[in-house]
C-alpha cells in the first residue's frame, strides 16, 4: 500500500516538473518577445567583444531580471566566458571567465574540442542561421548549444511557436537542418 502511494507521488511530481519545464520555455519565449535587446544582438555583442565561438545560450534570471546566459570560447586567450546580458539594453550583468587549461589539463572534453575545431574550420554563421530558423518556423529561438556526436558537429536549437516547443538540429559543416525521425 505504502509502495503504491510512493509510485503515485513520483508520477505527480514528474508531470508537475514536465509542466514546469514547458512553462519555463513559454516564459523564456515571452521574455525574448518583450526584449529590447534581441538574441541576434546579444550573440553579436558576445562574439565581437568577448569570444567568437558561442557554445551555449539560454534564458536565465539575475536578481529576478531575465537575462541571456551565454557561454563562449576565446581561442586566442584560451578562455571560456560565461556572461549574463540584460534583455533590456544588453548590459553585462554578470561575467565569469576561466582558463581552458587547468593544471595542464583541458577543461573541455574530446567531443567539445572536436566540435570547436570544426566550428572554427567551418563558415557557419550563427546569427544568420538563427534569423533563418525564426523566419522558416515562425518561431523564437530561446535556447541552443553546440554539440558533437558520432563525428557530427551541430547546434541543437530550441524554438517556440504557436504549435509549441520544437527542436531543430543544424549541421555546422553543411548548414543544413537534420531530418527528425517522427516515430
Amino acid at each position: 500500500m505504502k509502495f503504491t502511494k510512493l509510485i503515485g507521488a513520483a508520477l505527480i511530481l514528474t508531470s508537475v516538473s514536465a509542466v514546469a519545464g514547458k512553462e519555463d520555455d513559454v516564459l523564456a519565449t515571452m521574455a525574448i518577445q518583450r526584449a529590447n535587446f534581441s538574441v541576434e544582438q546579444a550573440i553579436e555583442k558576445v562574439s565581437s567583444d568577448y569570444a567568437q565561438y558561442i557554445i551555449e545560450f539560454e534564458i536565465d534570471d539575475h536578481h529576478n531580471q531575465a537575462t541571456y546566459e551565454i557561454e563562449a570560447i576565446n581561442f586566442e586567450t584560451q578562455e571560456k566566458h560565461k556572461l549574463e546580458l540584460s534583455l533590456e539594453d544588453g548590459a553585462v550583468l554578470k561575467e565569469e571567465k576561466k582558463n581552458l587549461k587547468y593544471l595542464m589539463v583541458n577543461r573541455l572534453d574530446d567531443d567539445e574540442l572536436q566540435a570547436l575545431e570544426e566550428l572554427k574550420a567551418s563558415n557557419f554563421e550563427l546569427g544568420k542561421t538563427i534569423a533563418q530558423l525564426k523566419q522558416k518556423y515562425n518561431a523564437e529561438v530561446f535556447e541552443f548549444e553546440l554539440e558533437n556526436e558520432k563525428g557530427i558537429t551541430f547546434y541543437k536549437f530550441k524554438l517556440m511557436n504557436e504549435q509549441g516547443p520544437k527542436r531543430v538540429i543544424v549541421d555546422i559543416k553543411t548548414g543544413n537542418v537534420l531530418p527528425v525521425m517522427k516515430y
Partner: protein
Amino acid sequence: MASVTEWWKTVKQARSIWRLTFLYTGLLLAVVIVLLVVLFQLSIGQMSRQQHLQMDNIIQQQTQLAQQLNNDEFIAQFKLQAESSRQYLLTYQTQSKMIGRLNSIPSNLSQCSKLARFPIWLDKYEEIRLISGCSQSLPDGLLIIAIDDEYLYDLKGQFITASMIALCLALLMGLITGLIFSTRVLKRINSINKVALRVESGQLSARIAVSKHNDEYDHMALHINTMLNQLQHSFETIAGITDAIAHDLRTPLGHLRQQLESEIEANLKHNLPSEQLQSMLEKLDEILFTFSAMLELTRLQQQQEQKSQHFKTVNLQQIMVDAVDLIEPLTEEKQQIIKLKSDLEVSIKGDASLLFRAVYNLLENASKYAGDKATISLQLTKNGFIVSDNGPGICDSEKDKVFQRLYRIEKSRQIAGFGLGLTLVKAIIQLHNGSIKLLDNNPGLSVQVEFSQ
C-alpha cells in the same frame, strides 16, 4: 664508414635468412587475409547484401504500386507501410507534404540503389543516428528509403580492428617463427659452405659436422664427407706418385746434368763445338724447374695447416718495393714503365718469401705478356695489392683456366713459360687466406689480390 661497411656485409649474409622469413611470413599473412575476407563476406557482407536486397524489393514494390494506384490510394497504403516497417525508414515527399518517418529530406541523398550515409535526429532518445538511404522518383513524388545500419557499421569497425590485430599477430608470429626456422636451416647450410670453402682453399682434411638428428642435412653431410675422404685419398695418392716420380727422376736427371756440364767443359778445353750440349742443358734445366715447381705446388696445396702455424707479421709494402727493385732490369730491357703506389702501411700474417714470389711472379707475367713499352702498375690497397698493365689482357673465357696447372693461352705459346706461374701465385694467396681475381684494365689486365685476415 667502416662500421657501415661491416653492417652491409652482415646484411648481405643475413639476406637469405630474411628472404626465407619474408616468404614464410608473406604466405602466412596471405592465408590470414583470405580467411578474414571469407569470414567478412559470410557474416557482415551477407547481412549487408540482404539489407540491400530487401530495400530493392521495397523500392520495386512501391514503384509498381505508384504506377497502379492513384495518388490518394498510394499515400494511404504508404502510410500503413511506413508505420508498420520498423527496420526501414520510409518517407514520401509530394509537392505539398511529407509522409512517413522523416520530417525533411536529407541534403546529400543519392539516387537508388546507391546508398548515402546521413545523420538524423531522434527526438525520442535525444540523439543523432547515422543511417544509410537513397531516393527514388515516383510519378507524383519522391520516395526515400533508409535503414538504420549503425550497428552494421560498428560491427564493420570492430571487425576491421580485430582483423588488424590478427594481422599484426600473424606478422609477428610469422617473423619470429620464420626467423627461427630460417636461421636453423641456413646455419646448417652455412656450416657446409664453410667446410667447402676450407676444402677449396686446400684444407682437404676439413669435414662437415654431423648432428644426432639424422635428417636430410645429416645424410647430405655424410655423403659429402665420404666424397671428401675419397678426394683426399686420391690427392694423397697423386701427390705420392708425383713426389715419387720427382724424387726418382731428379737424381738421374741431376746426374745427366752433371755429365752434360762435364762434356761441355771437356769440349771447351779441346775447342770443340758445344752449342748443342748447351741447348740440351737448358732444356734439362727447364724440366728440372718444372719438376721443382710442381713439387712445391703440391706441398703448398696440401700443407696449409702446417704452413700457417709458422706465419709471421709481414710488411707488404717492403715486399712490393723489393719485388719492383728485382723486376726493374727486366722492364728496362723492354723499355717498360713500372709504377709503384704504396702509401699505405699494410701488414699481414704470412710467409715473406712466398709472398715475395707471388708479387714477383705477377710482375714478371705482366712484363712478359704486356709487350714492349708497356706500363705496369703495382698498387698497395687496404687489404692487398693490384698488379695492372696496359697490354693485350686475357679474354673472359680464359680467366679461370689460366690458374690450372700447365695451362697456357694459345697466343702466348711463343713466349717462354711452363704454365705454372699463376697456379703457384694462386696457391700462395690461398695459403694466406686470400683471393685472386683477374679483371679487365681496359686495356690490359688487372690482377686484384685481397687478404681476408
